[in-house]
C-alpha cells in the first residue's frame, strides 16, 4: 500500500525516529499559546492519546497522541452560558497553517468588539479529527470512543454553532462548503443559507463540491449538473464519514459546517480579508441566536447550493422500495398458508382419525440454524479482522492495515462458499416450504434493517435498498440459478461499496481504472474499520452485523437443495 507497508522497513524507521527523539511534525503549542494570550484570549491546552486498532497510512503507529490548543474569548456583557466555536484542524503536515493565521487575525479583531453575547472558542486541534473528537468528548464529559484525554480546564457554555476552516493557500478563488457529517447527519439548512448569504454579501464565490451553481435551469445542463451534485451528496452521506471536523460536532447537537478555501485556475482571486469578512458576518449573525437552530430542515438533499429537496419529497421513494419487500413477504405467507390448507384437506374426514402435525409445518426451529450461522459469520466479519491482525502479520508478509482488509475480504468470500443444507426438518409433502419460510424471515429482516437505516441515514438506506431489494425479491432456488447468483453477488454490500466508489469518481469526472478502483476499495475498507473504532461511524457494523448476515440468508435461499 505505501512505502511503509513492509513491516521490517517500518520498524527500522520507527527506531530511527525514536533515536532522533523528534516527532515528524507537531503542533507548535507553545507559540500558539503565547500568540493567543497576546491577543487577549484565555488559553488552555488539552493533551490526548488514542490507541488505534491498527496503524494506517496517515498515522504509521498504534499510539497517536497530541495536544489541542484553544482560546476563549469571553463575551463582555453576557454570562458565558452559550458559545460559538471556530476550529482549525491541523493534520500531520502543515497544510492548514493559513487557516491558523486567519484564526488568530479574527481572534484579534473579535477581541476589540463589544457586541459579543456568546463566548467564542478558537480551537486548534492536532491530528485533524482525532483531536477534535478528543476535545468534544472532554467538553461534553462523555467517553464515546475510548479516547484518553486530559480534562478541560476552561469551558464556555453550551456550544450553539461551530465553523471549521481549512485553507491551504493565502489566496482563494472560491470558498467551498462541506455539510455531510458523521453517519450522514446534516446541519440545519439555516446554517448553509447563512454561509451563502454572507458569501454573496462579500462578493465571495461560494461553491458546493468544488463546482459553482448552474445559472441556467431551463436547458438540460442545469438539471444534469444538479443531478450530479445530488448523487454525489447521496454517496458522501451514505459513506457515513465525517467530511471535515464539523461532522463530529453534529453528534453533540451543535450545528456545524466546514469551509474550505479552493485555489483553482480562475482569474479573480480573493485574499484572506474577504474570507475573514465573510466569517465575521457569519459569527455576528450567529451571535444573535436566541435559541438553537431548529427552524429549518435537518434532512435534505442539495442539488445546488441554493436549492434543496426536503425529506417529504424523497422519503416515499424508500417507502415504496420497502413496500416491495413487504408485499413479497405477504405473498410468501399466503403461499405457505395455502400449502398448509391444501395439505390438511384430505385429512378432514369425519371420525376419530389421527390429527395431523401442528399446522406450523416448517416450524421456527428449522429456521434457527441458518439464522444463527449467518449472524455468526457477520460477527466473525466484525470482530476477527482487527483481533487477528497480529496473527496475520506473523504468518504473512503484510502490514497490519493490509492484514485487516484482507481478512475482511477472506471472511466475506468464505461466507459465499458456505453451503447450508438445513432442510432436514422439511416435511416430505412440501419440500418448498423450507426455503419459503427462510425467505419470508429474510425479507422481513431486510425490510426492518433498511427501514431503520433509512430513518437515520436516508442516503445509505436508499442506496442499499435500490441495490438489494430487487435481488432479494427475486432470489429463489428454481429458475436460472447462475443468473440470480450473479445478480445477488453484484448487489452484495461489498459489491455495492465497490460500485459506488466507481460511481463517485465517475461523477467527479475523474474516472478510475480497475486497478486503481481496487486499491481505492481496499483503502476504503481500511478507512471504514478505522473510523468505526475511532469516531464511532456506523457503516462498518451495519454492513457486517446487519446486512451481510441478511444477504447470506438470501444466498442460502438461492442454493437451497
Amino acid at each position, binding site marked *: 500500500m505505501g512505502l511503509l507497508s513492509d513491516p521490517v522497513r517500518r520498524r527500522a524507521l520507527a527506531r530511527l525516529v525514536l533515536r532522533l527523539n523528534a516527532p515528524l511534525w507537531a503542533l507548535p503549542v507553545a507559540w500558539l499559546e503565547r500568540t493567543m494570550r497576546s491577543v487577549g484570549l484565555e488559553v488552555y491546552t488539552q493533551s490526548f492519546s488514542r490507541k488505534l486498532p491498527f496503524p494506517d497510512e496517515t498515522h504509521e503507529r498504534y499510539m497517536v497522541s497530541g495536544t489541542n490548543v484553544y482560546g476563549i474569548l469571553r463575551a463582555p456583557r453576557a454570562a458565558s452560558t452559550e458559545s460559538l466555536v471556530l476550529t482549525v484542524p491541523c493534520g500531520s503536515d502543515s497544510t492548514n497553517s493559513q487557516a491558523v493565521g486567519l484564526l488568530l487575525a479574527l481572534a484579534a479583531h473579535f477581541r476589540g468588539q463589544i457586541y459579543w453575547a456568546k463566548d467564542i472558542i478558537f480551537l486548534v486541534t492536532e491530528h485533524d479529527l482525532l483531536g477534535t473528537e478528543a476535545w468534544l468528548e472532554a467538553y461534553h464529559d462523555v467517553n464515546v470512543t475510548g479516547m484518553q484525554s486530559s480534562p478541560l480546564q476552561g469551558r464556555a457554555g453550551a456550544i450553539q454553532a461551530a465553523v471549521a476552516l481549512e485553507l491551504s493557500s493565502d489566496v482563494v478563488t472560491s470558498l467551498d462548503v462541506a455539510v455531510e457529517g458523521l453517519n450522514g447527519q446534516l446541519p440545519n439548512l439555516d446554517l448553509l443559507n447563512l454561509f451563502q448569504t454572507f458569501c454573496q454579501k462579500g462578493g465571495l464565490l461560494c461553491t458546493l463540491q468544488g463546482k459553482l451553481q448552474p445559472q441556467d435551469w431551463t436547458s438540460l445542463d442545469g438539471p444534469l449538473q444538479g443531478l450530479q451534485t445530488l448523487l454525489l451528496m447521496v454517496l458522501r452521506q451514505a459513506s457515513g464519514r465525517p467530511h471535515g471536523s464539523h461532522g463530529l460536532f453534529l453528534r453533540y447537537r451543535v450545528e456545524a459546517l466546514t469551509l474550505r478555501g479552493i485555489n483553482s485556475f480562475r482569474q479573480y482571486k480573493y485574499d484572506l480579508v474577504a474570507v475573514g469578512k465573510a466569517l465575521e458576518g457569519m459569527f455576528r449573525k450567529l451571535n444573535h441566536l436566541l435559541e438553537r437552530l431548529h427552524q429549518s430542515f435537518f434532512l435534505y438533499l442539495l442539488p445546488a447550493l441554493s436549492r434543496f429537496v426536503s425529506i417529504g419529497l424523497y422519503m416515499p421513494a424508500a417507502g415504496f422500495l420497502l413496500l416491495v419487500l413487504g408485499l413479497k413477504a405477504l405473498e410468501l405467507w399466503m403461499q405457505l398458508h395455502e400449502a398448509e390448507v391444501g395439505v*390438511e384437506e384430505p385429512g*378432514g374426514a369425519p371420525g376419530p382419525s389421527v390429527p395431523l402435525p*401442528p399446522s406450523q409445518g416448517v416450524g421456527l426451529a428449522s429456521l434457527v440454524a441458518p439464522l444463527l450461522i449467518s449472524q455468526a459469520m457477520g460477527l466473525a466479519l466484525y470482530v476477527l479482522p482487527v483481533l487477528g491482525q497480529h496473527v496475520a502479520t506473523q504468518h504473512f508478509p503484510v502490514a497490519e492495515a493490509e492484514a485487516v482488509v484482507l481478512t475482511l475480504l477472506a471472511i466475506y468470500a468464505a461466507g459465499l462458499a458456505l453451503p447450508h443444507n438445513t432442510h432436514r426438518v422439511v416435511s416430505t409433502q412440501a419440500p418448498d416450504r423450507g426455503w419459503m419460510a427462510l425467505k419470508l424471515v429474510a425479507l422481513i429482516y431486510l425490510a426492518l434493517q433498511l427501514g431503520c437505516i433509512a430513518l437515520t441515514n436516508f442516503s445509505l438506506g436508499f442506496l442499499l435498498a435500490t441495490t438489494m431489494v430487487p435481488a432479494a425479491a427475486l432470489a429463489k432456488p428454481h429458475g436460472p440459478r447462475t443468473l440470480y447468483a450473479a445478480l445477488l453477488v453484484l448487489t452484495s454490500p461489498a459489491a455495492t461499496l465497490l460500485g459506488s466508489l466507481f460511481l463517485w469518481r465517475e461523477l467527479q469526472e475523474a474516472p478510475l481504472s480497475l486497478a486503481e478502483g481496487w486499491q481505492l476499495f481496499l483503502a476504503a475498507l481500511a478507512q471504514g474499520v478505522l473510523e468505526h473504532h475511532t469516531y464511532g461511524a456506523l457503516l462498518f457494523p451495519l454492513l457486517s452485523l446487519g446486512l451481510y448476515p441478511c444477504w447470506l440468508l438470501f444466498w442460502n435461499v438461492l442454493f437451497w437443495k
Partner: protein
Amino acid sequence: MAAPLALVLVVAVTVRAALFRSSLAEFISERVEVVSPLSSWKRVVEGLSLLDLGVSPYSGAVFHETPLIIYLFHFLIDYAELVFMITDALTAIALYFAIQDFNKVVFKKQKLLLELDQYAPDVAELIRTPMEMRYIPLKVALLQCFPQCYFSCLSDIPVSVPPYLVCPRTPLSPPAAVHTCENEEQGLLDLFLGVCHDVCGKPSGNRLPLLLPSQLLGFHPRSLWLYCWVSPDFKLSCAVKEGLSVPDLTPNIGLFWYFFAEMFEHFSLFFVCVFQINVFFYTIPLAIKLKEHPIFFMFIQIAIIAIFKSYPTVGDVALYMAFFPVWNHLYRFLRNIFVLTCIIIVCSLLFPVLWHLWIYAGSANSNFFYAITLTFNVGQILLISDYFYAFLRREYYLTHGLYLTAKDGTEAMLVLK
C-alpha cells in the same frame, strides 16, 4: 422434562450474567422502553439510600414501590443481580409446573366432555392430544429467554418474582394463580392476588367478584394487616396514588404520557379516570363470558393490563407473550397473525430508532415516538382480540361441529357479531 428446563434456565442465567457484566447494562437500564418511573431499579436504590440517611423514601417523588420492597432489598442490595436472576429462574420453574398442571386439567376435562358426548361429531381435528401438549410447558418457560426479560432484569425489579418471596410485583401471580385456580384453593388465590397486585393497583385475572372492589382500590384486605405490621407509617396513598393519578410523564411505551403532557390541569382528573377505567372495565364482561375458562381469562386480563396500564414496559409485554404456546391450538383460527406480528416486531425495532432521532439527533419530535407507541398498542390490542376471537370460534366449533351448514344445506360462514 427436567433436562430441557434446566438447559433453558442455564442459558437464561448465563445470558443475564453476561449482560450484567457488559457495557450494555448501563445503556439498557436507562432506556425508557424498559424502565418506568414505578419500577426503576435506580429509584429503588435512591429510596434505600434515603432510608439510610433517615429520610422517609416516600417524601420525594422518586420512590414508588411498597415497603416490602424496602425491607427485602435493604438486606439484599448488594446481591441485587443474583436476586433478580434467581427470581427469574424461579418464575420459569413455577410457570413450567403451573402450565403442566393446567394441561393435565384441560386434558381431563376434554376426556370428560368427549365421554359425555358434548362435542359435535366432526370435530376430531380440534381435539387436543397429549402429544402436542407435551412441549408447551417448556415453551412457556422460554419466557426467560425473551430479550425483553433480559432487559427488564437488568434495569428494574423483574417482571416476575415467585410467590413465596412476598414481593409485590405485578405478574408474580400468574404462576400462583394458575396453581391455585386449578387446585381450587380460593384462600391462597386471594392472598397471592391481593398481596401481589397492589403496586400499580391493577387486578389480575380474577373470577371472584368480591375481590373486585378492593382490587380496584389497589390492595387486598388481607395484605393490609401485613403492611401495617411491616411499616407503620406506610402511606397507602403513595404507591397506589402514583399508579392511579399518573403524575410522572416520562415517555414510555404506554398511551398516557403524551396525552397528559398536552392537557390542561383542569381536565386531567376526568381523563385520568377515563383512561384508568379502561384497565378495570373489561374485567366483569370477560368474567361473565369466560367463566369456564379462568386461565384464558387471566391471560386476556394480563394482556389488557399490559396495554392499558399507566406505566407499561416491555417486561409486561413479555409476560403475556409467554403464554402464547399454551394457545397454540388456536393458530388455525387466527386471522391476522402475520400482519400483527410484523407490526409488533417493526414497532419494537423502531422504538429505539425514533427515540434516538428525537432526543439525540434532534430531527424528530415526540410525535414520531408516540406514533410508534400508538401503532404498537394497536397491534397488541388487535392481537389480543384475534386470540379472543379464535378461542370463541373454537369453542363454537367444538359444540356445533366443524363443517357448518346453513338451513338450505350450503356451507355457512361464522360471523362474530
